[in-house]
């Protein structure tokens, strides 16, 4: 790879990471279409690259969230058993599927994500978590800086959240995405975990889930250092930039633009 595509890959990674952080999605949603459609990277290589980027952003974010105390480490570790199993199944499935088939599955998921963004369903207005009652070892508490209060909660309906986490792990291994789009609502709505703790715990788990998928892609020879390194570093830098920008920019106003961009990328991948 010459210097020009190397720079283009870094810039693409920065853009994907920034947009991902601004919209609360992982960078992979933007990175994979960019690599496949703009740089003509094979689908398997693009997914492997996205998985590496997911590990980088998840680990960096989790380091901060763990220190703030918003991550429910025990719940995360328990759910990791099923997400890792899901990622292994997804990675093995991906290794036997052709790149074109993977691209079409990815395109279908992009359409679902852009549709969800268009509907713009928000969960933050509901507070289904249960601060009282018998506390198990999975119960958690954290200090909410915005509300200036300590939030306590207990975890209910764990088998349902575990089932959704398996699916999220499977998507991670199969398509190189974090799967937070499924896990966070499941933890919030099914297990009654407050949104901040659900998002932080999901992010904490993503690194381990993605690493499980990454080793399969690595052993299959789909990881290209000259693509994964610049893209991964770019996404990491972009996600940090996105977090800062989200404090001053209103991502809501940009959302509809990205709904259209994602839908167009999905159609491009479908007809390719």
């Amino acid at each position: 790879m010459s210097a020009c595509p190397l720079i283009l890959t870094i810039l693409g990674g920065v853009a994907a990471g920034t947009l991902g952080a601004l919209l609360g999605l992982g960078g992979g949603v933007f990175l994979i279409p960019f690599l496949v459609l703009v740089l003509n990277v094979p689908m398997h290589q693009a997914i492997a690259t996205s998985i590496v980027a997911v590990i980088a952003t998840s680990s960096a974010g989790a380091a901060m969230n763990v220190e703030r105390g918003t991550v429910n480490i025990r719940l995360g570790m328990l759910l990791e058993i099923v997400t890792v199993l899901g990622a292994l199944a997804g990675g093995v499935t991906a290794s036997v599927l052709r790149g074109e088939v993977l691209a079409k599955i990815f395109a279908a998921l992009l359409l679902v994500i852009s549709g969800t963004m268009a509907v713009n369903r928000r969960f933050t207005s509901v507070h289904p978590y249960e601060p009282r009652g018998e506390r198990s070892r999975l119960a958690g508490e954290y200090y909410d800086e915005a509300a200036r209060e300590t939030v306590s909660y207990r975890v209910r309906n764990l088998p349902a959240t575990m089932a959704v986490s398996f699916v999220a792990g499977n998507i991670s291994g199969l398509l190189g995405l974090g799967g937070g789009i499924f896990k966070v609502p499941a933890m919030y709505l099914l297990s009654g975990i407050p949104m901040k703790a659900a998002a932080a715990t999901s992010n904490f788990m993503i690194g381990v889930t993605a690493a499980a998928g990454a080793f399969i892609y690595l052993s299959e020879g789909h990881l290209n250092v000259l693509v994964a390194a610049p893209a991964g570093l770019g996404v990491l830098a972009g996600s940090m930039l996105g977090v800062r920008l989200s404090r001053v920019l209103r991502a809501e106003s940009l959302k509809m633009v990205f709904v259209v961009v994602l839908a167009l990328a999905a159609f491009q991948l479908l007809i390719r």
Partner: protein
Amino acid sequence: MNEQNRQAERWISFTLRIGVLTSALLLGTGLVVEFLRPHAANEVTDPLEILRAVLSREETPPGMILLSAGLLILMFTPVVRVMTALGTFMLEKDRAFSFVAIIVLVMFILELLISLA
């Protein structure tokens, strides 16, 4: 939240931070080195192949070694994080969650062995 839990959180956070920083440093340096080097058409770009070449003392571009090392460290960071969590659960004498961490680790080890076989 007790002091033991806070200590565990600090260790886990520290592990993740060190992993990401080390990897970012290697990837950044590797990219600068590779940026300055002209590339051949059929160059080996698979990190495992590069690792094998280094172990068998074949001539390998330094930038590619740095990039491969950065990627491998990044990929192993979550695994080391699980090991750290296991250590903290054991110190807390939490047998149930030590067992959970061991299950996750065993799955990783089995996967690695099967993948590399």
